[in-house]
């Protein structure tokens, strides 16, 4: 187990230190001079490789960025979420809790479908921003937005309830940062079966989009939890 002895063979320029050192210094001087000149440019974004973050927000965030969540509303301003609980189920960090509520008469302008989340909580301290909830959501209701400033002053602020999630939606909409709907990934077409053959290409792709993760509700959540009317009303009032 003796260690191999390595013979060092240096060329002359390597041997005398100085030549390579001077070459290196020339290189660093090039960088210094380039950046020194860049320093005098106006504006916060002077040196091309550095963003002066709080002042300079010109850096483009990817449209598919996985940041702070929001709950989507549809064109009529109704909540899209149907409280199916898929997101809570798929979440690897178990940070989502959803309580289902049933839409009552006269609430059609508030909730898009018959069920809605009576409460919807995301614990940002647990969330790992994997984006599975977004991917698995059958209604595209929960979305990880482009907001990346997640620092908070207290633990309570880190728990996003439904109100905050909808507020996030409004904020994102106002800033024009709504996430475009993710393009479904084309899936290997199914082996030809008589009933599926007539489906057509578009339908196939659509059907297969759910192929990877349980994108459509695989099984119905067994029974909607009993939600007290008062709680529901509370939420409704908050909405106003």
């Amino acid at each position, binding site marked *: 187990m003796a260690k191999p002895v390595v013979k060092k063979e240096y060329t002359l320029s390597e041997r005398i230190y100085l030549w390579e050192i001077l070459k290196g*210094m020339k290189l660093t001087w090039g960088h210094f001079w380039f950046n020194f000149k860049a320093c005098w440019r106006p504006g916060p974004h002077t040196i091309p490789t550095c963003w002066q973050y709080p002042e300079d927000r010109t850096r483009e965030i990817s449209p598919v960025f996985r940041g702070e969540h929001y709950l989507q509303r549809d064109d009529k301003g109704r909540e899209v979420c149907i409280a199916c609980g898929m997101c809570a189920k798929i979440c690897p960090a178990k940070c989502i809790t959803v309580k289902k509520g049933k839409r009552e008469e006269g609430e059609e302008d508030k909730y898009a479908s018959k069920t809605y989340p009576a409460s919807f909580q995301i614990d940002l301290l647990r969330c790992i921003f994997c984006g599975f909830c977004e991917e698995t959501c059958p209604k595209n209701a929960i979305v990880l937005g482009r907001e990346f400033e997640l620092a908070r002053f207290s633990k309570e602020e880190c728990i996003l309830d439904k109100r905050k999630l909808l507020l996030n939606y409004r904020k994102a909409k106002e800033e024009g940062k709504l996430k475009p709907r993710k393009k479904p990934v084309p899936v290997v077409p199914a082996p030809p079966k008589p009933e599926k053959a007539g489906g057509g290409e578009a339908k196939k792709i659509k059907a297969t989009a759910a192929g990877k993760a349980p994108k459509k509700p695989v099984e119905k959540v067994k029974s909607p939890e009993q939600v007290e009317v008062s709680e529901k009303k509370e939420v409704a009032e908050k909405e106003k």
Partner: protein
Amino acid sequence: MDDWLVAIIKVVGIWVWVLLIAVVMTWVERRGAGLIQDRPGPNRAGPWGLFQPLADGIKLFTKEEIIPTKAQKFLYIIGPALFSLPAFSAYAVVPFGDKIILGGKEIILQVSDVNIGFLYILAIGSMAVYGVILGGWGSTNKYSILGGLRSTAQMVSYEVPLGLALLAVVFVYGTFSLRDISLAQQGTFLGFLPNWGIFKQPLGFILFIVAAYAEANRVPFDLPEAESEIVSGYHTEYGSMRLGLYLFGEYVNLVTISGIIVAIYFGSWHVPYIDLGAYLGPISWGIVSFCIFFLKVSFFLWMFVWVRWTLPRFRYDQVMGLGWRGLIPLALFNIFITALFIQLTV
């Protein structure tokens, strides 16, 4: 009485001046590092981040002083003082300009023109090692002790080539006084070169600058505080202004070393080919010579920064090998050549 006053003004003035440069150097170092590394560096406090050193100073001054429970209190406290004291006092014999005539009185721009300037510098420079080793030992920390030991060995070893390089300079100029050497560098050498020490002692200059880098614990010789190996070396356990003294002491050392390099090898306040002193009045020449000297010093200060962010670090045995096997024979060779040359020409 006037002499006293002038001396005190010079002492206080140069002290403040050197301290100021050292403080600004902390900013230059970080900003320069930033620009070399494609990032802006500290640019928040004040215009271009110029108040950064001020903020750092306030921070260091107002931080809680912590003395580790197991530290040897006396040594721990005296360490930084012993380090910064020689750093500040070494500049005393280094000139910072030619001379100025005020009220008919000729004032040389140097705190004191002793005729054993070199010896003073070497003696005072060696003192700094006490601050390092005592601080390292007093902290009762293994990293600190390692750093202190490294620093001691390095400083002691590199003092030899440093002294030998200076010896060759003494051969050339026949004096120990830095002012006399500065004065002797006026005019041209061999008819076309400025009469600067570097052209008479090219090898000596390289030896001196390498040894000086090692003495100042700068990259590539920054083993005593090699961050990745022994955390911060001898000042691992230090905080607040004690740490500040170590850090400022280092920068003051840089100023002193740059001053010596300029005074010995780079023609002090002389401009090549032109004798500005002959054209300017006594007062303006004093100021101009000071500025020229300072400009040259700033270049070498910048060199320290520049080299630091270019090179990797030596290893302990390699530093020792370079010092004893590389620099000292070369320095002796340099002395031999110089002596031979002088013997043949004179």
